[in-house]
């Protein structure tokens, strides 16, 4: 445990237009690092490149100094797990079966009772016993997300990558999922790298934050270093208030849009007040 994840000079492109360029980042062992940034800034792509779901054009990914991009995929799956944002739900696997899939790197064609025992342990840990035998296809967003986290957990890897685990969840489930992830990092020394949209969730739970814009890192450091009104304006094109909360974490309140990449803010297009309010004059 406590494995350090290192990414160096990672580059990726779907076509000739680069999506990621010169990505370098370090996730200290046993810490939670969040990647934030606007839609299309390359957060998910970065995670997929690190886990080799997409093949990077160049660069290196290392866990404790070992280059994982050269490993066999099955070997890589023993070191690194990936929690996707959502999952194909065509065929009715039970939740138990979906979680058991996480044992795949450790087992062959059959699963032993020991493997099943680990699945039951994780079901107990995440409190999934009510839905363990239900079809995965019929779960709500929050339950699905927890089942996918459970699957990554039985994989028993040192590094866990999470792609927006709280998107589409209500605030109860958002906190539930974030507490689980933070608990795993603190309790088991898992090294977690997480793409996330909610800046306040990132601020509250992460040790460090990486802010991306257009496939490059714009800022990285502690939540206070990264979540400044300046960075937020530069990257998101939004004027924001950053307040200090009782527990010393920053709280970001988006106030109004400023133009970004030449796009005019909606209030100008709609002839409304910058702070929103009623748009009765146009609608």
């Amino acid at each position, binding site marked *: 445990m406590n494995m350090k994840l290192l990414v160096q000079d990672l580059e990726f492109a779907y076509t000739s237009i680069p999506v990621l360029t010169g990505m370098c980042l370090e996730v200290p062992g046993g810490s939670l690092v969040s990647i934030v940034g606007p839609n299309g800034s390359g957060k998910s792509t970065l995670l*997929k490149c690190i*886990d*080799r*779901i997409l093949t990077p054009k160049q660069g290196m990914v290392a866990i404790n100094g070992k280059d994982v991009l050269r490993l*066999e*995929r*099955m*070997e*890589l*799956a*023993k070191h*690194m*797990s*990936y929690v*996707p944002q959502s*999952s*194909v*739900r*065509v*065929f*009715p*696997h*039970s939740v*138990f*079966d*979906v979680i058991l*899939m*996480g044992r*795949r*790197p450790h*087992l*062959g*064609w*059959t699963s032993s009772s020991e493997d099943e025992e*680990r699945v*039951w*342990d*994780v*079901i*107990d*840990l995440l*409190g999934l*016993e*009510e839905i*363990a*035998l239900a*079809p*995965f*296809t*019929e779960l709500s967003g929050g339950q699905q997300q927890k089942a*996918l986290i459970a*699957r990554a957990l039985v*994989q028993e890897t040192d590094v866990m990558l999470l792609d927006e685990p709280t998107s589409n969840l209500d605030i109860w489930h958002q906190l539930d999922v974030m507490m689980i992830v933070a608990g795993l990092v603190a*309790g088991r020394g898992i090294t977690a790298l997480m793409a996330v949209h909610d800046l306040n969730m990132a601020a509250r739970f992460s040790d460090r934050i990486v802010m991306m814009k257009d496939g490059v890192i714009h800022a990285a450091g502690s939540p206070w270093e990264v979540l400044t009104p300046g960075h937020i304006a530069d990257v998101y094109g939004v004027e924001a208030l950053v307040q200090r909360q009782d527990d010393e974490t920053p709280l970001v309140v988006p106030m109004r849009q400023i133009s970004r990449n030449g796009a005019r803010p909606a209030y100008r297009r709609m002839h409304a007040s910058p702070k929103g309010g009623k748009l009765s004059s146009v609608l």
Partner: protein
Amino acid sequence: MTGGYEPRSRAAQHHRELRNKKLEETRREHRRLMSRKFTFLAFIIALIIFAVGYIVTLGPLDLSILQVYETLLARFFPSVFSMDDVLEQVVWNIRFPRILGGIFAGFGFGICGCVMQAVLKNPLASPFTLGISSGAHFGVAIAAVFGVALVGGPFLLIANAFAFAMLCSLFIVSLAALKGATSETLILAGIAVNYLFSSLSQLMAYFATDEQLRLMTTWGMGDLSAFSWSKFGLFFVIFAVCTPLLWSKAQDLNLMTIGDDSAKSLGVEANRVRMLTMIVASILVATIVCFTGTIGFVGLVAPHMARMLIGADHRLLIPASGILGAFLLICSDAVAMNIIGPTVIPTGIMTALLGVPFFLYLVLKGKRKEFWQ
């Protein structure tokens, strides 16, 4: 690894006890479901053995089920069981090959449909989605109309059907290899090829004489009469290679139905498995199709029935799809042979006529939940 949860108060302790109880209940339920699934598998195997015995008794010569089993067993254990020469002729050489052919064909269609639905993540996929049957049909059309074939003699139609079925799937698979083997590419390529070869066959039909047209049409309806002991050799070899190969990929297929990203992150080379599975399944389907003609329905429906009855774990689903496919096909064939006296209705037609109502019943009744829950 435990919950890491130390009950502090009495309320917490009570809550923990309730959860433990629920967990234990769930585990017991899970064990019960698993054993039911195995029982079900054993049940349908028994059912198919009974069906074979019963179907052999149907026909002009009167014989009992026990006589059938005795005659069949006597082939393998001549010291224990005895048999009559007439019975042997009727059972072993006339009636049994057709049924055995039906079992193999149904089994093959069932498992191919099952694995194709898994790797393409599409419940509509079947051996025929990829245009394999229209390729084979075109091969038959060429042989029928021009008399041009790769091999002459009794294998004229069969060899041509096989060659064009394989050509079709090779085209799709290589196209996918060039453009990346995502499930969308494969399905789109399959549908396109399907249309292409259907049109070519229709073009041939347009210029064909009545007799040639009849040959093409009969083949297109699907029939099990082509099976005889002399033709089984190749059939057995291909089955013995392809079936275990597909079954051995069951775990990878499970992961791929949840999504390629997940499968890759769990160590499965998704694209490679997809290509391998498609190639192996294509060979199997092409082999069957060139003997039976178009019996498309079994490959689509058997996996769905199996999934409703036994769940989505491919380790059980693949054999269950095969066995249900075999059962469906031999039962339909038995009805087709016997329902209106000496006239034999083509198997393909009867399979759909009987299978569709049964399938719709299961769809309406079972919805997406497992049958047992």
